[in-house]
């Protein structure tokens, strides 16, 4: 069971990274930067050691920065999100507590649960990314506009992906 998790998460790591670098980074929409990579951190099994979540999100950020000239922006925002994830999972615990093999995805937790979970973590990630990008609170409203626009794009893609991929997996 453990091996299965490692393999599926490694594949997801590579696929999401490739999708981000080769497609989403090249899109010619200026005020919308769709980021899909946080989805990898979201979908790690619940009982992944916290230190592993942190290191994985850090390395994903480093790789992203390396391939998209991010200059540390992705590293900072993904690491922060990786750290925040365990607190969100604690708050969003099911009534009976987490089971050993639980994965926080649509299949196991349901649509509403995943909607709020992804909304909170993606908002957190995008907020850090866009405010570090301008490095100040100058142009506050144009940054907020860009943030909301990108967040809508990212979340739409995340929900479409999770609906399609996870539905077919269950059948």
């Amino acid at each position, binding site marked *: 069971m453990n091996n299965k998790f490692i393999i599926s998460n490694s594949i997801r790591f590579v696929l999401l990274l490739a999708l981000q670098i080769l497609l989403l980074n090249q899109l*010619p929409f200026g*005020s919308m930067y769709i980021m899909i990579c946080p989805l990898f951190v979201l979908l790690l099994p619940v009982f992944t050691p916290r*230190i592993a979540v942190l290191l994985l999100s850090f390395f994903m950020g480093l790789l992203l920065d390396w391939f998209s000239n991010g200059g540390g922006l992705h590293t*900072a925002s993904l690491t922060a999100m990786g750290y925040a994830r365990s607190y969100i999972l604690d708050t969003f615990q099911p009534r009976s507590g987490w089971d050993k093999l639980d994965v926080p995805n649509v299949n196991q937790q349901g649509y509403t649960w995943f909607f709020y979970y992804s909304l909170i973590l993606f908002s957190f990630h995008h907020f850090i990314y866009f405010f570090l990008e301008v490095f100040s609170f100058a142009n506050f409203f144009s940054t907020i506009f860009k943030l909301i626009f990108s967040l809508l794009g990212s979340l739409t893609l995340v929900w479409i992906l999770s609906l399609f991929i996870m539905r077919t997996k269950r059948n």
Partner: protein
Amino acid sequence: MRGIYYLITRFYVLILFVLLEFFALSLIYKSHKYQEVSFLNTSGNISGTFLGYFNNINTFIHLGQNNKTLMEENVLLKEQLRYQNNYPSDSGLPKNSLSYKFNYVAAKIVNNTVNKSINYITLDKGGKDGIQKGLGVISSNGVVGIITNVSENFSLAMSVISVKSQISVRHKKTNALGSLYWNGDNPYLLQVDGFSKTLPIKKNDTLVTAGFSSIFPPDIIVAKVKKLEPDESTSFFHVDVVLTNQINSLSYVYIVKNEKKKEIDSLEIQMLNE
């Protein structure tokens, strides 16, 4: 001692998080402070080669448009050639003497973004081809950016669509000077500072490179005026311009090498020191 051990075992995740975050923030700080990206950039051999391989698809998509711009450039060059042939070199007429000191290196775009506040373009020519930091990059119908990082085989240019970029431009009709920058909002709309309200500037007027810096040759077309509003608190216009080249669909560019750049720069530094 037991206290420290307890702290580390209890808070090791938090400690690691702070360390990693500090590392990332120092990278961001560096890339904001200096005119270059940190060591994590696409001019590296691995990332450059990888992206270059996949960028062939992008080149293929824009093939038709690239062909068209090349044809237009050919026509222009042919006209210039005919003009020069009509005046043989011993006629005493200078052969376009201003642009004499510039050399051009053709480069292919490997990676290109427009959705960040500082956008970089990776090019497949590097230190091996004599590319240095600070050289200008132009396309056949406009200005693209300035080289900021160079590795052996690749180089990185900061696009003019970057909040840190600033290029001096000239209004073609009146010769008024201004500086082209981007406010970070719409990547297809750039801003120009320094045009006085008294000038007869109109919509669709052409802006060209000023040619005072040793980076770009003079009189290269840069942008067209899109929107013009007098600023009420100053004596200048608020000018929004559109670049003449579409940076996101470019595939090939020219890197401008100035033979006299070293001389000009050392002279200017000397002057500043005095």
